[in-house]
């Protein structure tokens, strides 16, 4: 019964119509299983599907975001060990501090919703110098923007949505910062793409150690 026509043709990348909350969560959960092993997500599925909407669904999305923030925060920590120019080192420090603040905020939000924060996975990143760091940073930040933009419409709590919006704006600013450092266009598209959870997890899988 709820089926609005797509907002605008040019916005097709962001459309989430036809995706029910359950479907969104289930697909994300299956993707998590692919990432961490099926055993890790048994309770996760039953809980989120039993209660379509509400705090439990939001907790799943917040844990998805938390995992991405763990990854970004650790990525910038590792970058500081590289031989970076003063400017890029300062940038990595600032962005890393923001990501660490996102980790804390999401963890506390999940706990406030009586959820269990996801554990931090072990990561490895193929970065060896400034160029490879900046290149991967651009991918991660652009992916982060798309991940939040894709997940946000499935959030049910206005407060959680506001928090996600406040964070994704910073991810977008980071993406622009990194692109500037690389001499790339900072806003190459008029509309940032939305990515679904499985696609995001697939994109970051190479950096998660089993």
């Amino acid at each position: 019964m709820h089926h609005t026509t797509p907002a605008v043709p040019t916005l097709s990348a962001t459309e989430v119509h036809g995706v029910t909350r359950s479907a969104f969560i289930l697909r994300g959960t299956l993707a998590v299983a692919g990432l961490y092993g099926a055993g890790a997500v048994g309770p996760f599925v039953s809980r989120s599907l039993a209660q379509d909407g509400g705090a439990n669904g939001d907790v799943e999305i917040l844990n998805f975001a938390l995992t991405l923030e763990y990854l970004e925060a650790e990525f910038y920590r590792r970058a500081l060990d590289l031989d970076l120019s003063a400017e890029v080192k300062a940038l990595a420090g600032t962005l890393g501090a923001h990501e660490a603040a996102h980790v804390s905020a999401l963890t506390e939000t999940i706990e406030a919703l009586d959820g269990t924060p996801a554990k931090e996975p072990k990561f490895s990143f193929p970065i060896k110098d400034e160029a490879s760091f900046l290149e991967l940073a651009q991918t991660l930040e652009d992916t982060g923007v798309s991940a939040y933009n894709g997940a946000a419409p499935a959030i049910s709590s206005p407060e959680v949505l506001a928090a996600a919006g406040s964070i994704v704006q910073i991810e977008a600013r980071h993406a622009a910062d990194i692109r500037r450092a690389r001499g790339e266009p900072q806003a190459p598209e008029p509309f940032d793409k939305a990515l679904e959870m499985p696609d995001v997890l697939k994109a970051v899988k190479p950096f998660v150690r089993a």
Partner: protein
Amino acid sequence: MLEPRTNLPNRDGEPAMEQLARDPSSRKRFLSAVGGAGAATVFAGLLAACGQNGGGEGERVGDTGSVGAGSGGPTGGAAATRQKNPDPKMGTSDLEILNYALSLEYLENAFYARVLESDLFTGSDLEMIKGFAQNEREHLEAIKATVQKMGGEPAAEPKTKFPLGKPTSVLTLAATLENAGAAAYLGQANRIRSKEVLAAALSIHTVEARHAAALNALLGLAPEPEGAFAVPAPMEEVLASVQQFIVTPTP
């Protein structure tokens, strides 16, 4: 029921919403400095042009919480409020929000058009401005088309005036408009009812944020002036801040 937003800490350990309520940023200081009581009147005509009820039957309901940073944070319990809002006149409809966004896009478009006419910029700065202008043009067209698809009437384009001086002051004005735009979209995100409209608004929101960060950096300012958490701006505050760029029709 707990309110997650109030528990969001920043990296100094202070809950983000309290930090937001304290109004720390220079942007906010700027906005309060230029704020005027007449702004709502200027835009009332624009907003009145929109239809009765464009909310659509979205999933997100209970949009009772103001996201206004200046209002001192959430007033409670909205996370627990899942029942449908019984009165469609309560709260702002999606069409009103879209026409508000359209009004801001008109401003940004008019501004960039003036800047590109001015020959003030060359080289990479000019390329950047052209790119941003193109993005804003697409935002404007997309929002206008969305309003029409929802059966609403797009807000009329306002007459605008911008003080264009030296390149640095023009870039400062651009940064002001883009930062205000990002804060404005963020301020509406959790008031939008339709998932489709929300997805569209989010995809524009992060592009405004990219523009804002790029311009801040070009000016030697912090690309994330508010730190790890962006601060939303309520509609009234944004409208007050842009009033100076609207030519008020004289009767």
